[in-house]
């Protein structure tokens, strides 16, 4: 079923990565930043899967298992922190989390 070449997948992966990064850079909502971080991880998995397919090795695919797990754990912890912070500061805007500076 595969038709497109590896490079195309790689480009899509890179584009996703860049979009994710851009999101992290420009967004101020912590939750959205998180989503963008997830996008970056997904971009990595896409590259892995593509490589795995085109190189004919299994490692990339197996790696994705772990990445998904890690991502889920990360989100869980991250959201817990955000919720806890929200309880204190009643905001999720990163600009306002600046009690630690200078």
């Amino acid at each position: 079923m595969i038709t497109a070449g590896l490079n195309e997948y790689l480009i899509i992966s890179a584009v996703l990565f860049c979009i994710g990064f851009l999101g992290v850079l420009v967004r101020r909502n912590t939750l959205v930043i998180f989503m963008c971080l997830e996008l970056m991880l997904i971009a990595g998995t896409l590259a892995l899967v593509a490589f795995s397919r085109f190189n004919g090795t299994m490692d990339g695919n197996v790696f994705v298992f772990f990445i998904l797990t890690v991502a889920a754990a990360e989100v869980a912890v991250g959201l817990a922190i955000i919720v806890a912070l929200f309880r204190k500061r009643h905001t999720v805007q990163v600009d306002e989390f600046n009690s630690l500076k200078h």
Partner: protein
Amino acid sequence: MGQILFTCFAAFTVVCAAGVVFNKNAVNAAMCLLLALVGVAGLFVQLDAYLLAFLLLLVYAGAVVALFLFIIMLLDVKGRHAVGFNKVAVFAGLAAFALLLTGLGTFVARGQLDTPHPSNVPAVGADLKDYAIQLFTTYLLPVQIMGFLLLAAMIGVIVLSKRWEGLDDIK
């Protein structure tokens, strides 16, 4: 056919991903993320990684995005967008955009790999059994570690969120 499908999924994914970034509303952003994941899952399928596509949808769409939505609802943060795009931020964002675009350009220009035609390469990701063998032999140790990771994350979430005796910060 495959090429068209690929193009569709790719375009869909990219557009949805951009939606995550540029959607002012967090809920909509989460929905965009969900759709982007679906797109990626489609690409996975095209790469013969059916299990991974399934897992992606299951874990991400089913759990992660749901969690996001749940939290967004819980915190009810929509409409708190007053802060945001000041001039410096816009300029910085544009500069970042330009830089990323440049980088992407270089990547596209120089990152081309010669590949054998995919039909000459075994679709290793297609067989479910292979995953099982790998995870239970070669990657047994990482799997174990993953267990500890999840435990740690769970403990962490509990510590951060549970109402403890003598600790009255969570009402």
